[in-house]
């Protein structure tokens, strides 16, 4: 069920420092420290504290480290930061696929190209699913079939991933036989 034969999905390599860059920024959707392969020199590290730590966060230990309350806050800050950045920056992102491509979209909007942004999938495999019928984005989908929060259709979660929307495509599963909805399997933990 998980391999649907769609071969256009992005493949992610381990992050390593690109020595041709002059400044390096690592953003993570999680709270883990940056991978050692990036730390061979000055590195800014942005991370997101888990909601369970709300109110108990300690200030960052290293210089250049920042902790955000949420991935949304991190992305909004990243957009403001990139608007004033100069050539020579390398951006590294680590997190779930929707986070990665949101970051890539922000980077691209501010002029960073494929040679300047590096992505690595980490954490939950749960998917952001766009309902192709009503365009609602359903977050955190871990099952092969999901009921769309927008229009109520039972969507089959295809492996077709949109880098632009940072989302998988969900297509009505019972279009031919209304009501014929196979049981959902938990496939994307």
């Amino acid at each position, binding site marked *: 069920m998980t391999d649907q034969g769609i071969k256009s999905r992005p493949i992610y390599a381990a992050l390593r420092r690109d020595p041709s860059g002059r400044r390096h920024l690592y953003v993570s959707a999680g709270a883990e420290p940056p991978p050692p392969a990036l730390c061979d020199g000055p590195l800014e590290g942005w991370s997101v504290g888990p909601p369970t730590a709300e109110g108990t966060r300690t200030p960052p230990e290293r210089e250049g480290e920042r902790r955000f309350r949420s991935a949304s806050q991190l992305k909004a800050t990243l957009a403001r930061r990139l608007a004033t950045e*100069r*050539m*020579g920056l390398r951006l590294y992102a680590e997190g779930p696929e929707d986070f990665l491509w949101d970051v890539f979209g922000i980077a691209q909007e*501010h002029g960073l*190209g494929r040679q300047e942004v590096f992505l690595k999938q980490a954490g939950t495999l749960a998917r952001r699913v766009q309902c192709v019928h009503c365009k609602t984005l359903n977050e955190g989908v871990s099952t092969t079939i999901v009921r769309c929060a927008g229009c109520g259709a039972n969507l089959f979660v295809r492996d077709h991933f949109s880098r632009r929307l940072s989302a998988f495509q969900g297509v009505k599963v019972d279009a031919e036989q209304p009501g014929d909805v196979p049981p959902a399997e938990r496939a994307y933990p």
Partner: protein
Amino acid sequence: MILDAPLTARVAGIDPLSPTLKRVRFVPERGRFPTAAPGAHILVTLRGPERIWKNAYSLVTPPEQRDSYAIIVRRVEASRGGSHFLHDHLKPGDPVEIGPPTSLFPIASLARRHILIGGGIGLTPFLSYLPVLRARGAAFELHQYCTDDESEVFAGLLAEAGGMAMIHGRTNRRSVAGILADQPLGTHVYTCGPERLMAAVEAAAFAAGWPSGAIHKESFGSAEGGAPFTVTLARSGRTVPVSESQSLLEALETAGVEAPCLCRGGACGVCLTRVIDGAIEHRDHVLTEEERAGGRLIATCVSRARSDALVLDL
């Protein structure tokens, strides 16, 4: 549409711009010329009394201009004769054959800002960029490096093309590193001119952390002569002499060999030919260090033999 057949044209006018620079305007014999991309060049076939030259020149006319094409040619002392013929013998009304325009130096569509750095006559491709960049409302800067003597000529050409340029003469020039030091994300640099200038631009961009995809170079006219040698064509067994002032490609063409080519400046790689024997003096911008060391491929438009003879798989 891919055009293969040469365009027949004639010389409509020749303007002397300086003692060594002439602008030559061509008009089509019939109909209109094809639309050219910004930064495009054409291959002009010049038929002298004793020999034929095929030289690549950047178009300096705006891309949408189809009733005429113009090029600017410098008379080079150490040339293989093409620029001398063009300066000293070509006259209005003469027929010429022109290859369809080809662009190996396009404007990067994803760039958010463009820095154009020309050196001397290397300004020419940028003259066709300017109307396009302005029409797109693109952010750009143009820096032209030249001798003090020529700064007025280039200033005049840039004014015709709409201006917005900085001219850097010999005595008062800003460093390339200074230009590239503090540019916003999404900036691309394009350079055309002497090898030393282009190398300086590339080095400054890398030093400032620019990715290779944001650095664009165009080089022409590096087909300088050298020691004569002979080339043997393995398939036909023929032997062709290459004189001091000829390129290997020109010698092949003179001998009637159909050799592939496109840019004639060592930039595109279309002319790469397999070498069976002999030592190569590589002068192209296409082969990797590994391929050069391998010694099995030669860019016939610019490279020569380091030995007395070469054997080609032709």
